[in-house]
């Protein structure tokens, strides 16, 4: 990456930029969702798009999650490429029939007659004292349903490339944006680029332990890895980028090298993505392991409001550091 090509924009601006470029490129791309238009979204991730593309392409909808996801399904199967914003990922619960039973199934049940180029963007994650109904990380819900793809971008640069890929994908994609990232600035290359799905990113190389992380946990894992690096413990950090498709090969290669795997994902621990990631590669790496695979995730309790309660239950750099250090002991 050429130095002068890199500038800094926020994660939210990266959303708007990705959608803007895709809308300019293809008039079938439209954006619909609650408050996405005049105010540019609850998280200001779509600012400027309505002014540029007009009310019919950037549509402020009623508060009807099931209705608007279904609207997106209908548009997608009749030749459009809609992007539906669900303000908080918790609200996919209200649209779950349209996601899991309609969007995910109609291609299959039609015997391949239709395709569903639909992107559902939703804001996930805790850390803002938003309490139990506005803080969840529910990507495992959707990753469980065949027919859907699931992406979790970690930085603005990742987000931009992955969102453009999501919009161009001819399948329904649930795109989980982490809400604590929206206002953070990241270096993002100028110009158009895409990042393919199913290709994990080795963000930091190391030999003592592999950390596989998703979304915001990638950043927290890097923080922990930096600290461990100063102590001479070199940790490899992998940003999974997409849960579906899942890049097992990159993880397997890394764990064969390091012999140790820590999975860090913000979903609840029980029946979560961490368990699936570990079990998904177990048979390939079992005899290479020097230590049991371990997981960090949000504790199995609803996400509490008070910061005094919330932060202790969500993984952070300190917890990752401690766990990784313990695992890396020889």
């Amino acid at each position: 990456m050429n130095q002068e090509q890199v500038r800094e924009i926020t994660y939210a601006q990266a959303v708007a930029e990705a959608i803007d470029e895709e809308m300019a490129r293809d008039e079938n791309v439209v954006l619909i969702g609650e408050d996405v238009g005049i105010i540019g979204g609850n998280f200001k991730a779509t600012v400027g798009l309505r002014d540029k593309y007009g009310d019919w392409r950037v549509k402020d909808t009623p508060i009807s999650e099931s209705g608007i996801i279904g609207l997106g399904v209908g548009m997608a199967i009749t030749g459009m490429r809609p992007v539906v914003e669900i303000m908080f990922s918790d609200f996919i619960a209200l649209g779950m029939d349209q996601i899991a039973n309609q969007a995910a199934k109609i291609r299959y049940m039609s015997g391949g007659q239709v395709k569903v180029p639909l992107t559902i963007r939703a804001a996930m994650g805790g850390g803002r004292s938003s309490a139990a109904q506005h803080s969840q990380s529910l990507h495992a819900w959707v990753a469980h349903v065949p027919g859907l793809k699931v992406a979790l971008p970690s930085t603005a640069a990742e987000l931009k490339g992955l969102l453009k890929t999501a919009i161009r994908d001819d399948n329904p994609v649930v795109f989980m944006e982490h809400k604590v990232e929206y206002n953070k600035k990241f270096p993002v290359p100028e110009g158009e680029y895409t990042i393919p799905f199913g290709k994990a990113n080795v963000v930091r190389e190391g030999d003592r332990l592999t950390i596989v992380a998703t979304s915001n946990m990638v950043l927290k894992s890097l923080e922990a890895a930096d600290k461990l690096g100063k102590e001479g413990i070199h940790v490899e950090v992998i940003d999974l980028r997409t849960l579906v498709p899942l890049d097992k090969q990159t993880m397997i290669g890394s764990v064969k090298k390091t012999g140790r795997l820590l999975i860090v994902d913000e979903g609840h621990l029980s029946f979560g993505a961490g368990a699936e990631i570990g079990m998904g590669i177990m048979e390939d790496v079992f005899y290479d392991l020097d230590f049991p695979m371990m997981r960090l995730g949000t504790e199995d309790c609803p996400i509490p409001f008070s910061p005094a309660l919330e932060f202790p239950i969500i993984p952070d750099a300190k917890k990752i550091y401690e766990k990784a250090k313990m695992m890396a002991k020889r």
Partner: protein
Amino acid sequence: MSAQKRSSKKKGTSDGNRYEEDFLKNLYATMYRIRQFEEQVFELYKLGLMPGLAHSYIGEEAVATGACAALQDRDYIVSTHRGHGHLIARGADTKKMMAEVLGKKDGYCKGKAGSMHIVALDKGILGANGIVGGGIPIATGAAYMAKYKDTKQVTVSFLGESATNEGTFHESLNMASAWDLPVVYVVENNRYGISVALDRVTKMQDIAVRAQAYGIGGVTIDGNDVLKVYETVKEAVASAREGQGPALIECKTYRFKGHHVGDPATQYRTREEEAFWKERCPLVCFRDYLIEKAGSDEKGIVALENAINDEIQEAIVFAKNSPYPDAVEAFEDIYFEGR
């Protein structure tokens, strides 16, 4: 069927000779084709040849027939779990439908849909649906596409009266109305959602009044009168096509059989009620009308009926002869892999 005997109760037809005989005969042929298809599906079920279940459209044929006759080829429909009638009225191939119902490779959806979820894109059929109310926002989205691209296509969304108690109904009507989308909601009010009569769970018995709450013109009509359905839907479709926004048409009708092929319907409705509606059989009434008012010759009608009986028998043979899909096909069409 004696025309004379029934001449006093033509409750199922409009009056007057406003239409060409061919047009009327085509309507009758469609209704008869649906009836025959459904009767044969029931037979296949009784013989144990049909996997799963099917929801019979018998008694409601005039709704699908009248509504689809009002559409152009490029228009869309979205159907329900009780979808065979909508599909046939839209011109779907009964061979491919029957093969799908039997879970065969040559079915519309290669055996992945069965009775309840058939999609036939070449006929503008965006899908039947196993989820009550599931198709309503999808139809509304197709209408958004048509409005956005100014394609002048109209979408008809079929739904049962019980589906109007789902949130998707209200969410969809609200959006369609706010944005003047070209969609016509055709509600088939057959009074029952499985075993539950509408008056046990809903105060208002005319679903059309619900449309008014969304600023949509809602009308209640006799859903067993195929010409009435045709005329009402035609007007609504024309107005939607011109950009005047959505409409809701409630068709009062009745399903003669149980909720699905395995339901005897003995516990929740009376034999008197069934008899009342059978007197108003849309098929019989329209047949009488053809002979008495439209000057059709009964021999010609019998010939038409026989030809359709043969067609459905051929569909059954085709479906029976079609192989089952290979087990590996279960993994096909989950994702679109191409570019």
